Every structure is written in C-alpha cells, then in structure tokens.
C-alpha cells in the first residue's frame, strides 16, 4: 500500500506543469519540492537519529551564499554546485563536531547558536555577504545546457533532484546503516554495547542531512536568484522543523507533505489573509492536538480505524 501511495504521489508531482495553469502555481510547486528536499534532509536527524536541529537554515544558507558568491565571480555551473555542496558538507562537519557534544536539549541549543552565527555573518559581514541587502545573481545558470529560465523547466529540473533525494532517503532508511542510525535514536547505550560507534554514526547522519540541506539551498538560490539573511534566520530553521513534525517525523512521505502544507499556506493564504501566520499557527495546533504523530502517520491511523481494523 505504501508503495502505491508513493507511486501515486510521484506521478501527480511529475505532471504538475501539464495540468496546472499559470506560472504562479508551477512556481509554488517548485518551491514545495525544494523545501521538501530541505525537510527530508532535516528529517534524517530529527526523525531517524532523534537529534532535533534548529540550525539547518544555516547550512541551507551557506550553500546558497557560496553559490551566489562563486556565480558572481564568474564560476561555471559545475564549479558552483560542487563548491557550494562541498562547503556545506565541511561546515556540516564542523557543526556536527560541536553539536554532538550534547544530545536532546543540549543538541538543540548548540544548533541554534551555530545557526545564529551563520545568520550574524550574513547580516553583519557586509563585505562578504552584502548584509541585509543580500546577493542577487544575474540569471539562473544552465547546467549542462539545460535552460532553467522558465518556470516549467525549473520545475522539472527540481523534480529530478527531488527524485534523487527521495531515492537516497529510501536507500538510507532501508539499509543496515539506516537501521543503525535509528538504533542510536532508540537505545544509544545498547548500541555501544553491541559494538556500534554511536558518535560516528550520528556524525555521518549529520553530514548526510547537511548535504541535502545544501542541495535545497542551492535550488533556493537558483529559484529566487537572490539570497538574504532571511534565508538563514532562526525562523527558517524552525519552519523546516515544523514541516517535518507536521508531516510526520521519521517517515519518508511526511516531510514532503509538511513542506507542501507550509509552502501552500504561505503563498496562497497570504494572498487572502494578511495574518497568514495565524492560519499556519492554527493549523499546527490542530495537527498537534488531533494527529500528534504528524499528518501522514495520523491519516494512516484514521484510515485504518475507518476500515474497522
């Protein structure tokens, strides 16, 4: 059943530009996908490793800023992508070494601090980041000759990256390493006694998580052709975490549903209601009250009960 759900969702997503009219909604679909990639990355830690990070917007932003700087300096698209992702992974490693000194609340607080350092640099180091004004890029690059300028072509490019992200997540979740990561979440003590290096497992999971956050950050820059401190703010980290929690932590589909929810409300509701944050907040409260495990596992539960199981 799970497999069919996933196939159906992917089929719908692949054909979005064909049945959705107007560039506005295609662009929203692109945003959903890129934030879904981000949320999938955050979910590796928050869902499978049991480590809640509130600093991942920092990693997301580092990829975006690095790419913007290198594009500005005239770098080619391969150099840009490689350098942005390499930088993100290196910074992720530094984040991980510092944050993994703690677990639980300690881990959360250290990631908040690290994220805020990135934000501080983005906001204050004007020579490097142009401060509050942010950095613009002239145009979306054309990787391997593919023009990404139109909303449709950008959507499909994002969709391909999204598929790779999903595939890598599915492989990770079903693999022995994925089982080890979940083991360190549930019984770190036992895992050590079983011969696992709990710290190293968490470290590698952090790098994996950081990598996909970086990919999302890169897509974000290409999409907006602009990055500013807003992208690396604490609220951006919190939003990513809310996507994961509202959709369902530790599930493959949850972060995608959560990303769709947040992006749609942000873009659609804000057209009608000025205080759209209120709508988002109310929906989250509703989710926490009625489906505390998240929308995806919650819907499965309700559906099963409806069938009299």
């Amino acid at each position: 059943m799970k497999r069919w759900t996933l196939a159906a969702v992917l089929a719908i997503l692949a054909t979005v530009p064909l049945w959705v009219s107007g560039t506005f909604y295609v662009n929203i679909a692109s945003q959903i996908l890129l934030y879904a990639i981000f949320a999938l990355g955050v979910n590796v830690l928050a869902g499978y490793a049991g480590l809640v990070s509130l600093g991942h917007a920092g990693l997301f932003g580092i990829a975006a800023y690095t790419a913007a700087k290198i594009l500005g300096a005239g770098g080619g698209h391969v150099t840009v992508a490689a350098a942005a992702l390499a930088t993100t992974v290196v910074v992720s490693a530094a984040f991980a070494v510092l944050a993994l000194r703690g677990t639980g609340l300690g881990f959360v607080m250290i990631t908040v601090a690290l994220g805020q350092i990135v934000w501080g640099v983005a906001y204050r180091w004007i020579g490097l980041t142009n401060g509050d004004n942010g950095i613009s890029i002239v145009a979306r690059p054309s990787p391997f000759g593919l023009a990404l300028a139109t909303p449709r072509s950008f959507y499909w490019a994002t969709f391909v990256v999204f598929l790779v992200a999903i595939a890598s997540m599915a492989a990770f979740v079903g693999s022995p390493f994925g089982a080890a990561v979940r083991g360190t979440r549930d019984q770190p003590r036992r895992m050590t006694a079983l011969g696992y290096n709990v710290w190293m497992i968490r470290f590698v999971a952090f790098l994996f998580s950081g990598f996909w956050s970086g990919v999302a950050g890169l897509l974000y820059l290409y999409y907006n052709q602009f990055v500013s401190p807003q992208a690396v703010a604490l609220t951006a980290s919190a939003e990513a975490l809310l996507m994961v929690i509202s959709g369902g932590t530790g599930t493959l589909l949850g972060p995608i549903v959560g990303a769709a929810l947040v992006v749609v409300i942000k873009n659609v509701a804000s057209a009608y209601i000025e205080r759209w944050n209120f709508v988002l907040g109310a929906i989250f409260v509703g989710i926490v009250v009625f489906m505390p495990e998240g929308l995806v596992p919650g819907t499965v539960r309700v559906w099963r009960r409806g069938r009299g199981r």
Partner: protein
Amino acid sequence: MAEGARTVTALAVRGLQKAFGGLRVTSDVDLSVAPGERRLIIGQNGAGKTTLFNLITGELKPDRGTIHLFERDITRVPSRRRAHLGIARTYQIITLFPRDTLLRNVALALLGLTSLRWNPFVRLERQTALLARAREVLAQVALDHLADRPLAQTSYGERRRVEIAMALAQNPRVLLLDEPFAGLSIEERQDVRALVKGIPRDVTIVMIEHDMDTALDFAERITVLHFGEVVVEGTRAEVAAHPRTKEIYFAD
C-alpha cells in the same frame, strides 16, 4: 604475553575502584574468572554489582584498577571495542528496540560486529544470511515463532529472553547477565534457567542475581559483594557456610 606458568583467566579484575562524588560504589574489587566458568555475583541492593558490570563493559571508567580479558588489558579500551573483543551483556532494565520486530532486534545485534553496519546502499531485508542467523539465535531462546512480531507486542518474560538473545547474537567469549530472572514468574524462571544452562561451555558466564536461591544451582563459584567490596568468594558450600554471608543475608 603472560608468563607460561600462569593459568589463563577469561576475566580478571584487579583493584577496581569507582566513586560517584563522595560515594564509593566499588572499592578495591578483585575478581578472577576462569574460561568456561559459571560465576554468580550476589549482594544486596547498592552492593555495586551493576556498577561492576558497567566497569567491565566500559560504560563507566574506573578511578583505579585494571580489567583484563583473556590476559589482554582492556582497561582503556572503549566500550564498543570491548564488544568486538568478545564481551556481551544483558541489562537488568530491559534495553531493547520497542518499535522493531524481534528479528530486527537480534539482527541489529548481529550487525554490530560486521562492517555491514556502515553500508547505506544495500537493503537490510535482503541480507538473507544475516536474517537467517538472527532466526537461529531466536530459536536458541525459543522465540523464533515470534520473530516478526514487534517487540512492543511481546510479554515481559519474552523480552527477558530477547535480552539474552541479543547478547548471544554477539557470539561472546564472556557473557555478563544482569539479573536475568528479575520480574519473572516461577515458570518463566525455569525457562530462562534452562536456556542459560544450555549455553555452550566456550562462553564464560558471569551472572548477577539479587536473590541467592534462584541461581544457586547455576553457579560454580560465588562472589558476595557488600558495599562495593568482595567479602566472600568460593564454592557454593564455602560461601553458604561463611559467617560473613550469614551476617549480610540474615543479620536483620
């Protein structure tokens, strides 16, 4: 290594001290267990039995003293490496993976000692050799019929046996059992007792038991701990006859 005259010990603990703040939990504990031996450690609550296990597995670092595994000094070897060297343990408080099936629990124990545990590319479900071995281990504790049941849906007695299965899966040279009978009914106790008796002789077993009667027939030698010190050690008869044992167990 050691001089030829000395007989090999499976586990040798010398002068082991551990204090939590001002509280001495073990003071100067000496313990020497021969290969294949069945050793029982008894003592009242707070005698330092579990702390001794935590020191042997490396979960705690001793303030002083040494630990040798088959004449190899492992005092400074990290806990996870000790698992690879052949120390396995069970926990007094069930420490298993409640969301996973019994098979997955045991598979995780098997995986811990192979390099496969780092592999993010293959599917765990397709590791047929590993999963077949996990079923074998579950059969050893007579739980193979429940292999695909989530741990959360099993009884307490069954979980106790999974605890032992996890440790057996690690193919240990020294097996530390921390109160394997705790909380079990008389019938369940008999099952676990038979199970422990069936463990082959190439595994050295050290068992903590709070209650002296339960595990007496298991033990070849008994060590009595009292306030972090070894007060009596010897055969069953020697320990039972020792005045200090009576003092500790029947004083008040």
